[in-house]
């Protein structure tokens, strides 16, 4: 390796030479963050995008209600108001310097999408239409809800995702669809590429790169009831952990108030934004008790807790009393079919409920991961979680924690964050590549761990099954680390997770072939879920306060003195190590959070 010549392809032990690829930029994940970065960087450099699913199957497409920007197309709005709402919505855990960038650049990002051809809904004047969403208000919370969420009917994520895919085709981005990242190649603080599995044909591939970017999405699949796709197993986060890097604020998991009963499928917050009611079994608009001013348009953490409290106190609907109703009937058929047609379709197809005539049974569902890979404002991954970047490694979107959402994300801020920081990552990669023309040295044993992992699982012939362990993990995480948490159950859960890990060592799989083997993939994914779930639980146990989506019944108040700080956690030799970093406060001092 001493006479490394960056111009020739080098041997990687155990990987055939035709399976070693080279690109200036290798992006993992073809959702909004990954493809927005790819679009940006492909104007100047050779970009490859790997995705475990075909690009338009990415879960950004499932987002429904909108993307936030203070365009003021429908009524007065200002970035300062958007900033205040985001800070307060996140229960003051978001970094305010970065939130300021988010809300200031939001209009630019949304208009660019329009210029790319995104089919936004329109106002009578022909401008991008905007609707109300929870926690978005006028005049620093003093006024009522504001029309800020730019939307394409109730398919906003789908419209944005397909628009970006189209633009990436135009820019000749090289897609590797159905390639699954197995490990990162980080040595001496420099990211040199990654190792991936070709799902369709089988086989380990090495991607030698000057820069790697992760847009790998969230970790909702660790919970039983979730709006997340089956693919949202948080692989990227665990790959970062395994590379010896930290994760930030993992204990903050958002439960969306309105998941379709039993399936957990997202029922857009646009349902509340357009004026829908939440009712308990007595037909009472119970939000009156929890958020008398903002009612149904309070932020998600608060509404989810309110629903769960109604259920826990015996005011839930149905035989088991385990759901409440989202009632749209008073909106009328015309408004429902014009503004919420997908919701109508989902309620009908999955529950056989016609929401024009009947209320929709809903329950809270694990939805969004506030925690993730610590990055700076230019999306560089931070080796110490604070300021030291890993050279050539970037992350954006739900897998990252930049942190704009703090302890609780506002609706429509996620499509914004993913696109805006995807764009920033792309720009920052371009700046880096203009300076660094050489490929970093590729170690000969770069694929060692990945090859061993695949070989171990393909040969696994134990008695435990992936399905059973995963089901137990998801049930326990939901029950013991869900909307409400306390020390006793979290401690119990930590022990149970260790047991599950032991059982995971004894799994067996049925499919031993290389081609399109989801049996293999699901086993690898389960390993990832077990890895990061431990961090969620340990972080939740240590954080002895209630803030945003993290609600400790044994510590019901927010404790700014002790806990106005971000959690950083590493896994070293099987042990979890913690560090903390301060929250950046600029314009808005923490205040009591009421709606």
């Amino acid at each position, binding site marked *: 390796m001493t006479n490394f010549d960056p111009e020739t392809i080098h041997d990687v032990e155990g990987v055939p030479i035709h399976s070693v690829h080279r690109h200036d930029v290798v992006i993992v994940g073809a959702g909004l963050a990954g493809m927005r970065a790819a679009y940006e960087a492909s104007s100047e450099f050779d970009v490859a995008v790997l995705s475990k699913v075909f690009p338009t199957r990415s879960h950004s497409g499932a987002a429904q209600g909108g993307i936030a920007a203070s365009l003021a197309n429908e009524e007065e709005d200002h970035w300062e108001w958007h900033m205040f709402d985001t800070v307060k919505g996140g229960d003051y855990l978001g970094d305010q310097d970065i939130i300021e960038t988010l809300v200031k650049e939001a209009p630019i990002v949304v208009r660019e999408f329009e210029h*790319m*051809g995104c089919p936004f*809904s*329109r106002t009578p004047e022909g*401008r991008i239409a905007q609707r109300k969403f929870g926690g978005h208000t006028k005049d620093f919370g003093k006024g009522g809800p504001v029309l800020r969420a730019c939307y394409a009917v109730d*398919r906003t994520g789908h419209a944005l995702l397909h628009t970006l895919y189209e633009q990436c*085709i135009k820019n000749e981005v090289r897609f590797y669809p159905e390639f699954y990242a197995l490990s990162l190649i980080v040595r001496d603080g420099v990211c040199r590429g990654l190792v991936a599995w070709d799902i369709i044909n089988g086989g380990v591939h090495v991607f030698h790169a000057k820069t790697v970017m992760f847009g790998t999405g969230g970790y909702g699949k660790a919970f039983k009831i979730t709006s997340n796709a089956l693919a949202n197993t948080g692989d990227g986060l665990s790959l970062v952990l395994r590379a010896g890097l930290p994760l930030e604020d993992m204990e903050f998991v958002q439960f969306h108030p309105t998941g379709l009963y039993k399936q957990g499928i997202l029922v857009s917050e646009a349902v509340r934004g357009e004026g829908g009611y939440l009712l308990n079994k007595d037909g009472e608009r119970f939000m009156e008790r929890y958020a008398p001013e903002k009612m149904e348009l309070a932020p998600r953490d608060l509404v989810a807790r309110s629903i769960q409290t109604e259920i826990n106190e015996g005011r839930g609907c149905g035989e088991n009393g385990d759901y409440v109703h989202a009632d749209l009937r008073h909106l009328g058929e015309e408004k429902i079919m014009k503004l919420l047609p997908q919701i109508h379709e989902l309620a009908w*197809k*999955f529950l056989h409920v016609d929401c024009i005539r009947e209320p929709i049974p809903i329950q809270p569902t694990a939805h969004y991961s506030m925690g993730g890979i610590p990055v700076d404002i230019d999306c560089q991954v931070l080796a110490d979680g604070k300021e030291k970047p890993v050279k050539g490694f970037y992350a954006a979107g739900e897998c990252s924690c930049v942190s704009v959402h703090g302890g609780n994300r506002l609706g429509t801020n996620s499509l914004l964050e993913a696109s805006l920081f995807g764009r920033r990552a792309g720009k920052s990669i371009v700046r880096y590549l203009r300076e660094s023309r050489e490929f970093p040295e590729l170690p000969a044993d770069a694929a060692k761990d990945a090859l061993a992992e695949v070989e171990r699982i393909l040969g696994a012939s134990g008695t435990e099954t992936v399905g059973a362990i995963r089901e137990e993990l998801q049930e326990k995480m939901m029950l013991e680390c869900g909307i409400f948490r306390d020390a006793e159950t979290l401690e119990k859960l930590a022990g149970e997770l260790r047991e599950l890990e032991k059982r995971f060592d004894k799994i067996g799989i049925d499919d031993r072939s290389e081609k399109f083997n989801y049996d293999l993939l699901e086993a690898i994914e389960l390993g990832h879920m077990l890895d990061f779930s431990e961090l969620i639980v340990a972080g939740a146990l240590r954080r002895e306060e209630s803030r945003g989506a993290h609600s400790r019944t044994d510590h019901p108040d927010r404790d700014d003195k002790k806990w106005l700080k971000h959690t950083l956690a590493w896994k070293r030799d099987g042990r979890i190590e913690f560090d903390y970093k301060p929250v950046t406060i600029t314009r808005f001092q923490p205040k009591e959070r009421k709606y």
Partner: protein
Amino acid sequence: MAMITFRINRYNPDDERRGHYAQEYQLDVQKGTTLLDALNEIKWKQDGTLTFRRSCRSGICGSCAMTINGVNNLACETQVLGLGGSTITVEPMRGYPVIKDLVVSLDPLVRGILAVKPYMITHSPPPSDQERLQSPEEREKIDGLYECILCGSCTSSCPSFWADKEYIGPHAFLKAYRFVADSRDEGSAEHMEALDDRHGLWRCHTIFNCVEACPKDLNPTKAISELKKELVRRKLG
């Protein structure tokens, strides 16, 4: 609860000699169980080798399109008990090369899409710091077009595609018309360039299978006839 037999058409690429074969699985199914739930249950508890694509579970990603009792649909949106009958036949979508079990190659889909320059083409620069204006009436013209999830159900059901593997396909025509019908797009000629061809529009014989097959209730045949009219108009004009 009802005991349902799932008769699944299987194919193992490592066992070419065996070719395609049917295998039956039994499962107790409850009200509310989707076909995707059932397939997952079988994969996770009975046979880990059973292979199919899936992701969002909510009918928006398009991964789990397959042929269910002879008709293309998304497994995640199909209620098992809604199908009626105690045996359900599940096959990979027709017309595409099968990779394994219910998984088919998406290459024909992508090839079709690429042929129509599937992105908005504009020559005039966008207004700075503003969106392009589009009236609600103009915007309405792309309703029923932009919602496509690229699941491939339409093209798989099309006899013209069965006979001509170079056929661009209804999914791609729908995409082309999504841009041709968009008041902001200035590249109609470019989107339609590949369509006036023996593998293009004229191979559509208005059989309407694509309309029936679309799980999102879109109408590719209508888009195709609009494009045909547009082509003729251009030729005569």
